C-alpha cells in the first residue's frame, strides 16, 4: 500500500515536472513531416562527362575501345569495365586504347569512360576578313574634339594695327667724311620716305604709296658719276588696287610688276583659279632706269601664273612669268622667268631661272635663246643647326632699253676695233660677264651662343680674266648674357682678283630699358694686300649702332664707323628716324 502510494506520488511529481518543462520552453512547432520520397533510381541517362564505350579488340596487353577522341575519350580518360578502372594511354579519333594490366577484357564488353577535354586548343577559325572595299566609303569625317570645345578667349598681344590705314615716314641722313688728310671730299645725303597703305572706302579699294624726297651734298658731287641715279624725288610705288574675292586689279606705279620684275607704270590684273592657282597679266611703261622718272621710251607687258598652297605640308609656291617689252617702237625683251619655293618644315628649298630671247643682231652677240639666270638656294634646319647653300649664275640684264642708260662695258667685254680710233665706242666681243656664285654657310645656335661659318666663291664661268673671289667668314655671338648683354666677334678672309683681305671685329652690345635701347660697338682690324704691290696695309675701324625704340610707332637708328690706317681714313655715319603712327 505504501509502495503504491509512493509510486503515485513519484508519478505525480514526474508528471508535473514534465508539464512545467513543457510550459517553460516554447513549444516548437514540429515541421510537417515531409513525404518520404521514394529512393531515386540510379540515373539511367549518360552523364555528360561520361560516355559508354565498347571493347572492340584486344591485342597484347592493350584493349581498344570505341568511341575515341571524337566522343571525348582521350588520353587519361578513365574507362570502367566490370567495376575496374583502366586509364586511356592513347587515343585516335575512332579508338581509345587502355593497358589491361593483366586483366582480361573481352571484346564487346561494355563500360563507361570519363570525358577528357581536348588538350590542345581548339582551332579558332578566324572570321573571314572583310575586303578592304567594305570600308572604302564607310568612314565619315571625324568631328574634331576641338570643335565641341568653347574655350575662354585668351587675347595675345596688343591691339592689332588698323590695317585699313597704315602710314610710315622715315627720315634718313648720312655722310662720309674723310679724316686725317685723306684725299677726297665729304659726302652727305638725306631722304624723307613716306609709305602709305589706305583702304578709305567701304569698297575693297586700296591705295599704296612709297615715295622718297632725297638729296646729296658734296663738294665734288657734280664730278661724281651716277648723277641721274640721285633724283630729288623717287616714287617707288603709287598704286590703286581693287579686290573682289580672288580677283585683283591695280593701276599706277607698281613696285613689282610680277614676281620676277621690277617697277612698272601700268596696270595689273589677277584672278584666282582655285587650288592655289592664279593667273595675272600686266602691262605699262618702264620708268627711267636710273632716276625712276616716268618715261614713254619703253613698254613692258606679260602674264604671270602663280601657285601657292601655304596650307600644304610643303607649302609650295611658284610663279612663272612671261613678258616682253618694246623700245623705240621695236620688240626688245622677250623673257621667261620663274621662281619656286618649298618649305618642308623649318627648311626651304627654292630656285629661279630666266631664259631670254635675243635678236640675231643683238649688240651683245648673245645667241637667240640664252639662259641668262638660274639659281637654287636651300636652307635646312636640324634642331639647333642650320645649313644653307646657294648657287647662282647670272648675266647682266640686257636690253636695248637698258643699254640706252648704261655703258656698254656693263653688259659685256668690249674691245676696240682693230685700226679704229682708240677713243671711239667699242663693241662687245661676245663674252658676257657670267657671274657664278656659290655660297654655303652653317650656323649653330643654342640659348646663349650662336656660331656661324660660311664661305663663298665668285667667278666668271666664261672668262678667266674677270674678277673672282673666294673667301670665308665666321661669326660668334654670345647672346643674352645677364639678359641685356651680348658679345659678337667675327672674322673674314677673302682672296679676290683685286686684293687679299683679312679682317676681324669684336664688340659688345647692350639691350637696355626693356629692350627699347640697343647699343652695339665694335672694333675692326683689317689687313689689306693689294694685288699690285702685295704690301700689307693695316686698317683700324671703330663703329657702332644705336637703336632706340621709344614706342611702337617710333624708331631711331644711328650707325657709324671710323676708319683709319694705311688704306683710308674716313668716318661714315648714317641715321634714321621712323614714325609709324597708329591710325
Amino acid at each position, binding site marked *: 500500500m505504501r509502495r503504491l502510494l509512493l509510486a503515485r506520488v513519484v508519478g505525480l511529481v514526474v508528471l508535473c515536472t514534465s508539464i512545467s518543462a513543457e510550459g517553460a520552453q516554447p513549444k516548437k512547432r514540429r515541421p510537417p513531416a515531409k513525404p518520404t520520397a521514394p529512393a531515386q533510381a540510379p540515373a539511367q541517362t549518360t552523364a555528360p562527362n561520361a560516355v559508354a564505350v565498347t571493347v572492340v579488340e584486344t591485342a597484347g596487353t592493350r584493349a581498344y575501345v570505341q568511341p575515341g577522341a571524337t566522343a571525348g575519350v582521350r588520353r587519361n580518360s578513365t574507362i570502367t569495365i566490370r567495376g575496374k578502372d583502366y586509364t586511356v594511354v592513347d587515343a585516335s579519333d575512332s579508338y581509345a586504347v587502355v593497358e589491361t594490366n593483366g586483366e582480361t577484357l573481352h571484346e564487346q564488353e561494355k563500360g563507361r569512360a570519363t570525358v577528357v577535354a581536348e588538350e590542345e586548343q581548339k582551332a579558332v577559325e578566324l*572570321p573571314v576578313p572583310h575586303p578592304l572595299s567594305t570600308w572604302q566609303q564607310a568612314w565619315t569625317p571625324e568631328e574634331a*574634339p576641338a570643335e565641341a570645345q568653347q574655350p575662354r578667349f*585668351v587675347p595675345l598681344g596688343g591691339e592689332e594695327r588698323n590695317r585699313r590705314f597704315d602710314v610710315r615716314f622715315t627720315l634718313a641722313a648720312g655722310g662720309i667724311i674723310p679724316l686725317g688728310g685723306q684725299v*677726297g671730299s665729304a659726302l652727305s645725303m638725306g631722304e624723307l620716305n613716306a609709305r602709305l597703305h589706305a583702304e578709305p572706302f567701304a569698297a575693297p579699294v586700296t591705295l599704296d604709296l612709297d615715295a622718297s624726297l632725297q638729296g646729296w651734298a658734296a663738294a665734288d658731287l657734280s664730278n661724281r658719276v651716277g648723277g641721274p641715279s640721285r633724283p630729288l624725288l623717287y616714287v617707288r610705288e603709287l598704286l590703286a588696287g581693287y579686290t573682289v574675292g580672288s580677283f585683283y586689279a591695280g593701276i599706277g606705279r607698281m613696285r613689282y610688276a610680277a614676281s620676277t620684275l621690277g617697277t612698272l607704270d601700268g596696270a595689273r590684273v589677277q584672278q584666282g583659279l582655285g587650288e592655289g592657282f592664279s593667273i595675272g597679266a600686266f602691262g605699262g611703261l618702264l620708268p627711267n632706269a636710273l632716276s625712276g622718272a616716268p618715261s614713254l621710251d619703253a613698254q613692258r607687258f606679260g602674264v604671270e601664273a602663280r601657285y601657292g598652297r601655304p596650307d600644304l605640308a610643303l607649302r609650295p609656291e611658284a610663279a612663272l612669268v612671261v613678258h616682253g617689252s618694246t623700245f623705240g617702237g621695236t620688240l626688245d625683251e622677250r623673257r621667261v622667268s620663274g621662281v619656286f619655293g618649298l618649305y618642308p618644315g*623649318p627648311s626651304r628649298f627654292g630656285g629661279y631661272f630666266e631664259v631670254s630671247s635675243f635678236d640675231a643682231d643683238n649688240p651683245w652677240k648673245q645667241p637667240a635663246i640664252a639662259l641668262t639666270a638660274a639659281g637654287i638656294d636651300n*636652307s635646312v634646319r636640324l634642331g639647333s643647326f642650320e645649313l644653307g647653300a646657294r648657287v647662282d649664275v647670272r648675266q647682266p640684264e640686257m636690253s636695248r632699253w637698258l643699254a640706252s642708260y648704261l655703258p656698254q662695258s656693263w653688259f659685256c667685254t668690249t674691245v676696240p676695233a682693230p685700226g679704229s680710233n682708240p677713243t671711239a665706242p667699242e663693241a662687245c666681243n661676245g663674252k658676257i660677264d657670267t657671274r657664278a656664285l656659290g655660297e654655303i654657310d652653317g650656323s649653330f645656335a643654342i640659348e646663349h651662343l650662336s656660331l656661324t661659318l660660311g664661305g663663298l666663291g665668285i667667278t666668271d664661268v666664261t672668262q678667266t680674266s674677270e674678277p673672282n673671289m673666294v673667301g670665308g667668314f665666321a661669326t660668334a655671338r654670345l647672346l643674352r648674357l645677364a639678359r641685356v648683354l651680348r658679345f659678337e666677334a667675327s672674322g673674314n678672309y677673302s682672296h679676290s682678283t683685286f686684293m687679299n683681305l683679312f679682317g676681324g671685329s669684336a664688340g659688345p652690345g647692350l639691350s637696355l630699358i626693356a629692350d627699347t635701347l640697343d647699343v652695339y660697338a665694335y672694333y675692326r682690324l683689317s689687313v689689306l694686300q693689294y694685288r699690285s704691290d702685295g704690301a700689307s696695309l693695316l686698317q683700324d675701324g671703330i663703329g657702332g649702332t644705336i637703336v632706340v625704340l621709344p614706342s611702337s610707332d617710333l624708331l631711331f637708328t644711328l650707325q657709324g664707323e671710323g676708319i683709319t690706317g694705311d688704306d683710308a681714313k674716313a668716318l661714315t655715319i648714317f641715321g634714321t628716324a621712323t614714325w609709324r603712327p597708329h591710325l
Partner: protein
Amino acid sequence: MSPARLARALCAVVATVLLLLLARSASAQLLSPGPLSKAHASLEGDAHCSDCHSSGKRVDAGLCLRCHADLGARIAAGQGLHGLQYRGQACEGCHVEHLGVGTSQIRWPGGGPQSLDHAQTGWPLNGAHKTAACTKCHNRVDKSGGQTFLGLSRNCTSCHKDQHDGRFGATCTGCHDEAAWTDLRLQDFNHDLAHFPLRGAHTTVQCAKCHSDPPKYVGLKFALCGDCHKDPHSGRLGAACADCHEDTKWKPVTFSHASARHPGVSLANGHARVACGACHDRGNLAAPSKGTECVSCHRPVHAAPFGRGCGSCHGTIQWLGLPRSVGLSAHARTVYPLTGKHDAVACTSCHQPGLPAEQRFRKLAFARCADCHADQHRGEFASLDRGECRPCHATSGFRPTLFSADMHASTAFPLLGKHIASACSACHTTPRPRTDLHVAKQACADCHANPHGDQFAKEMAQGGCAHCHDPRGWDLPKVDHSTWPLIGAHATAQCESCHHPTPEDKKAGHGASYRGVPRNCSGCHDDAHLGQFRLTQPAYECDHCHSTKGFKIQDFDHKAIAGWALTGAHAKTDCAKCHSMASVAGGQATVRWRGPSTECRFCHANPHEQRTTPALSVAAASPATASPQPAGHGFSDAVSCSACHSTTAWRSSDAETSSGTVKFDHAKTGFPLTGQHQHASCVACHSSSRPLKRDCASCHEDSHRGRLGQSCDKCHSAAGWRVTQPLEIHRRTRFPLTGMHVLADCTQCHLRASEQKFTDAPVDCYGCHEQDYRRPGIFPVHVGSSTAAPLPRDCSMCHRAVAWVPANVPSSLLGTIGSPLQTQVAPRNHDVRFPIAFGSHRTAACSDCHATLAVPRAVRCIGCHAHDPVLVTQQHRTPVPTDGASCLSCHPGGARR
C-alpha cells in the same frame, strides 16, 4: 397591439434571426452526434455523413462493407466470427461511433477480446492456445494502421516457425499436439525424412540407443559409424566401416576384390588378378613384407617427378585409361603443364588413341605448337619465331592475341603516333577469325582521304601524307613554313585558323587551301580597325604596329609607330580623349585611331582665335603675297600651338595673362624678337595668310627679287631695313670697299640703286673707270696709240684703291708702256719706291735726283722742285727740311699730298 406585446414580438424576431445565422455556421455540429474514432477520422465532416448513413437508416451496413470488403466477403462465405455469428445483424450493434477520437468502437461480447469464445469463430482454442494472449496471433494491422483480426491462416506455420525447415511437411500435428511441442507421437515418425534414414539393423534399434534418455533429437553425431559404434580394429582399417561391413549385420564381412574395399590399396583391375599371397606373404591380416607402396612392386617409368605414390594417379590399379582429372593433375608436374585452353582440351586430342602407347605419351611431340596445331595463317608469320604461335598467342586462347603494337615494329609498318591507338580491325579488315593479316595497302592515302585536293600533288607523289604529316596526329605537321616563317603567336596557332576552307574550296570539293593563301595580315585577320590604316595615307598594314606575338601592343611607342611622341600631359591622357569611337556605315564601330590631324588644334580649340569682323585685306602686313586673303584676328589655325606651348602645360611660366597681355619669351622659339620685331604684334607674323617660317622672306617682301639670296639678316638688321653695314657687306663680295672707294656714294656704282638690284654693278675697274682709262694726258696713254698697244683694262695690275698713284707696273708691262732709257738701267723695284717708268718723273735723268750714282740713296728734290726756301715754306705753311729724305718721307714716290 400593446407596447409590451410589440416588444416581445420584436425580441422573438431578433432571436429567430440570430438562431438562423448561428445555425448556418454550426449546422454540422448540431447534426453530428460527436467526433468519429481515429479509424474513421477521414470521414469526419458533414459532407461524409452519407458515406455511412443512408436515408431512413442509422447506419447502412452495405455502406460499411463497401469499405470493409474483405469482411463482407467472409460474411458472405459464412466464415469467421462475423460470418458465423453475426450474419445479417446491424454493424452498430457491436461497433459504436461518434464517441470521440480516442475511443474504441468495438463492443466485445463479454467486455473484451479475451472474453470471446473463440469457438464462435469456427476455430476453438485448445491446449496451450487457450492461454496464449490474443495479440500473439492477432498481431496484424490493416491498411489504416489499426489492429485487425482478419487474415490469419489455420496452418501451424502461420504462427509457429518450422524448426525442421519443411522436411516433415507443413502439418505439425503429425507429431505434435496443441498441448505442448515436446508431447510427441513417435510411433508414426518416418525416420526416412530425417538426416539418417534407418536401414538394416538400425530399424530395430530402440530410439533411446541413439537419442538417449531423456531423448535428444538435435545435435547428435551420426556421420561416421564410429560416432555410435566402437572400432574393434583400433583404426587400423580406417574409419569407413562400410567398406567391409554392411548395416544389416557386422558379420560376415563382405570383402571382395571387385568391391575394392581392400584397405590401403585397391584390388580392382590389375590387382584383381593378383593372388593375395603374392603380397601378403605373412598372412592376409599382416602387411606384406616388401612394403605396401606401389614402388614396392612396380618400377617407376615416368620421367616426370611424380614421386613414389603411384596411387595418386593409378588408384584404380590401371596404368592407362586413367580418368581425365588424373591426367590433368599429373600434367602440372610434367614439362608441359596444361594451361589455358589446354586444360579443357580432350586428352585424346593430343594423346591420340590411334598412336602406339609409347608414342602417344612418352614420345609425344609437343615442343612446337605446330606439333598439334595447324598454321591458320598459312605461313604468314613463318619468319616470326620460326612460325611459332607463342609470340602472338597464349594457351588462354588464340584470342586475344599477344601481338601488341610494339611488336608491330617488326613488320613493314611500325605503328607510330595515332596508329598505336587504332584497333587492329581498323586496318586488318578480314572477317573473324582473322587468319589473313595481310594489308596490301600501306600508303597513307590507301586508308586516309586526301582533303587537300590536288594542291599537294607533288608532295603526295614524293612521300604521301607523311611528307607533311606526322603519325602522331594530323595537327602536328612537319611543314617547311620557311617561306612564311611562323613566329610569335603564329608558331602556336592551329593551321586551321588560317587554312580553313573557303567557299571556293568547298565548292571545289576539297579542304582548306594551303597554297595561294594571302601572306599579308589582312589575308587572314579581319581588320578590327575597319580599314582606317589601310585606306588613308600613309597606309599601314597590321605589322606596322602589331607583332606576331599578339595583337595587343604591350608598350605602344606612339612616336615610333604613330610618328607623334606622347610627351608631357599627353603621356597621361586617356587614349579615348583623342581617339573616340567611330561608327561607320554598316553599323560597325571601332576606335578611330587615325585622326585626320596631329596638330594641336584638332583636339584643342584655339582660345586665341576671336573672329570679330572680317578684315578687308592684309596687303600691308603681307606684301610678299600681295594676294588678298581673309585674315583672322588673333592667332590663327595656321600657327601651331607648339610655337608657344609645351605638352607639359598650356600655361607657360613666362606668360603673364593677368593684365590681358602676354610677355612671352620668344627667344625660346629660337627666334629672339629684336629691333622692330619687338613691337610687332603676334598676328603680324602668326596669321592665317602665311605659313610660319623663320625666313625673313616669309614675312617681308624681298625687294631684291631673290638676287641676293634669302638670308636677309646677312645684310639687314631687325632694327630696320636701312640699318645695314655697307662696308661689311662689301667685304664678302669681289669688291671690298677700300681706299678711295670708302668715300664713294652707292649711286656712283649702283646706278640702278632704285631698283635695288645691286648685282648689276660691274666689278671690273674698267666698267666704272672707263673715263679714267681713256683720260687724255695720262702717261702712259692707256688706250694705246698707233705705235703702242693699249694697256690691260685690269687696273688692279698696277693700281691700288688707295690712289691711282703710285702705281706698280709689273715687269711684263715695262716694254709695253715704252718707258725712257733710265728705266732700263734702274733697279727693277725702282718704281715701287719711286716710279720713274710713268708719272711726272718719267723724263727725269738719273742725275736729277741722285747727286752721285755711287750713293743712290742720297737723293735731292730741290733740284727741280721749289728750290726757293721761301716758296717751300709758303707751300708747306711751315718751315720744312728740304733734304731729299725729308721730302720723300711726306711725299712717298713723289706723290702729292
